[in-house]
């Protein structure tokens, strides 16, 4: 890659100054040469998976010359390799800023984005941070922290720091074998990871002690056996049919034991599971049916209410105090009135309830008749009664006067003439009753005077 002028960016030859802008190049060449040397060293180390060493060299290279694109891209790649994708993306972003065209960093970032790796890495980072919080927490949830770390490594199997933390917790839990495996996995990615190398050294002490203690145990056992004359069992060729039969029955017995302890419990569990599922299914069905029944009952109640309401409405039309009855009574009143039977019309009107029908025409006729029968009816009845009396039709006259007193019980004229009607029809006792009322209640009238004479005092 040709060297470019630090000031104007033009390509440089072998001269000591830039031919375009005249910038001195001696010191700059020294710096770039040193940076290149560090980059080459970093590249060599990266090739043999000495990634920690490579990172140191490349970081130093970038302190000399921050625009060294290859060094920055390689540093990003190494960060990606050890699971530090945020660091990797940062280096590639800076690299792409310095050299937007023809830059490997842009391709690498695009690959990361297109493959959905960014989201996966973020998930792994979140879980790692959570596991760290759990491990550092007051309640020391190391088991939960381990579970989280295992998930992290399933998502990002190159996350060195996750291996480190995993190994540390295993060491703390005295699970040295697992810790050793975690350390080994990390060192396969970065064989110069200082923390993992330290853990491995620590682990070798424990594992070495364990191996030594196992060997010592075997030796002691061997010596003890020899001293007590114990016969160590050795392999012998079997012979004879008895032994074969014994083996067959032994096999059958073992098979039965396997069935009894493994197969039958499994079948029982399956049956129990199926039964539970069926019970739950029936329970669900019952719940559904209950809901249906409740719904139907509610519907029945609703329909019954509707039916009652409809009956009430029908009753209001057809009942004794209904609309139809009111119209019929009204027709009867009108018929009697136009036939000239005033008394019958008044009788019929008395049976009529004005508020039964709300129709405006009905109400108008009702009000007119009401006025007619209430204000003018007393006098009208009296006149008709008087005319009947004059025509010697005492029975008819009696009816009119009685009706007249119904309307106005204090009507003295009607009382007197009613008494006369009873008098003329031979009912002297009733006649005297009305005469007495006239005499006592209206003593200063001409009717009282006549009544006294008729009664004979």
């Amino acid at each position, binding site marked *: 890659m040709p060297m470019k002028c630090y000031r104007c960016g033009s390509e440089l030859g072998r001269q000591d100054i830039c031919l375009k802008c005249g910038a001195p190049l001696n010191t700059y060449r020294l710096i770039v040469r040193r940076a290149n040397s560090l980059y080459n060293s970093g590249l060599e180390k990266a090739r043999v998976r000495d990634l920690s060493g490579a990172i140191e060299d490349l970081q130093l290279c970038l302190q*000399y010359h*921050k625009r060294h694109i290859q060094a920055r891209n390689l540093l990003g790649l190494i960060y990606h390799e050890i699971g*530090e994708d945020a660091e990797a993306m940062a*280096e590639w972003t800076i690299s792409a*800023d310095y050299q937007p065209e023809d830059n490997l960093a842009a391709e690498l970032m695009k690959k990361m984005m297109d493959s959905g790796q960014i989201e996966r890495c973020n998930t792994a*980072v979140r879980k790692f*941070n959570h596991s760290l919080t759990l491990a550092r927490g007051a309640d020391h949830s190391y088991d939960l922290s381990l579970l989280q770390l295992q998930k992290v490594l399933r998502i990002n199997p190159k996350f060195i720091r996750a291996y480190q933390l995993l190994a540390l917790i295993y060491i703390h839990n005295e699970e040295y074998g697992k810790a050793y495996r975690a350390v080994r996995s990390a060192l396969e990615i970065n064989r110069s990871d200082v923390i993992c190398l330290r853990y491995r050294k620590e682990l070798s002490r424990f594992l070495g002690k364990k191996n030594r203690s196992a060997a010592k145990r075997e030796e002691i056992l061997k010596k003890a056996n020899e001293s007590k004359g114990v016969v160590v069992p050795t392999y012998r060729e079997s012979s004879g049919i008895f032994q074969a039969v014994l083996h067959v029955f032994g096999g059958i017995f073992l098979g039965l034991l396997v069935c009894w302890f493994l197969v039958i419990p499994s079948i029982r569990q399956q049956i129990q599971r199926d039964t539970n599922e069926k019970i739950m299914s029936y329970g669900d069905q019952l719940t559904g049916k209950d809901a249906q029944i409740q719904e139907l009952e509610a519907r029945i109640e609703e329909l019954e209410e509707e039916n009652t309401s409809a009956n009430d409405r029908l009753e209001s039309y057809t009942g004794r105090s209904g609309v139809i009855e009111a119209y019929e009574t009204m027709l009867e009143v009108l018929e009697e009135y136009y036939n000239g039977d005033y008394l019958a019309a008044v009788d019929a009107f008395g049976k009529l309830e004005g508020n039964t029908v709300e129709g405006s025409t009905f109400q108008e006729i009702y009000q007119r008749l009401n006025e007619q029968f209430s204000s003018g009816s007393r006098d009208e009845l009296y006149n008709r009664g008087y005319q009947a009396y004059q025509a010697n039709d005492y029975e008819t006259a009696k009816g009119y006067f009685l009706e007249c007193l119904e309307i106005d019980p204090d009507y003295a004229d009607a009382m007197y003439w009613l008494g006369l009607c009873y008098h003329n029809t031979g009912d002297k006792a009733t006649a005297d009753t009305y005469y007495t009322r006239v005499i006592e209640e209206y003593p200063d009238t001409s009717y009282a005077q006549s009544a006294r004479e008729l009664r004979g005092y």
Partner: protein
Amino acid sequence: MLNFEEELKNFEPSKEIDETGETARNRNKTDLVDIMMQLLKEREE
């Protein structure tokens, strides 16, 4: 012998990739070439 608590303190929380912009800004520091340019500029002045 490892001291678990001390070792645990050395672990820092990781950064998510969304935080890349900030990380990049922190990373883009002065290099030796910048210092050299500054010295040359001061000498010219």
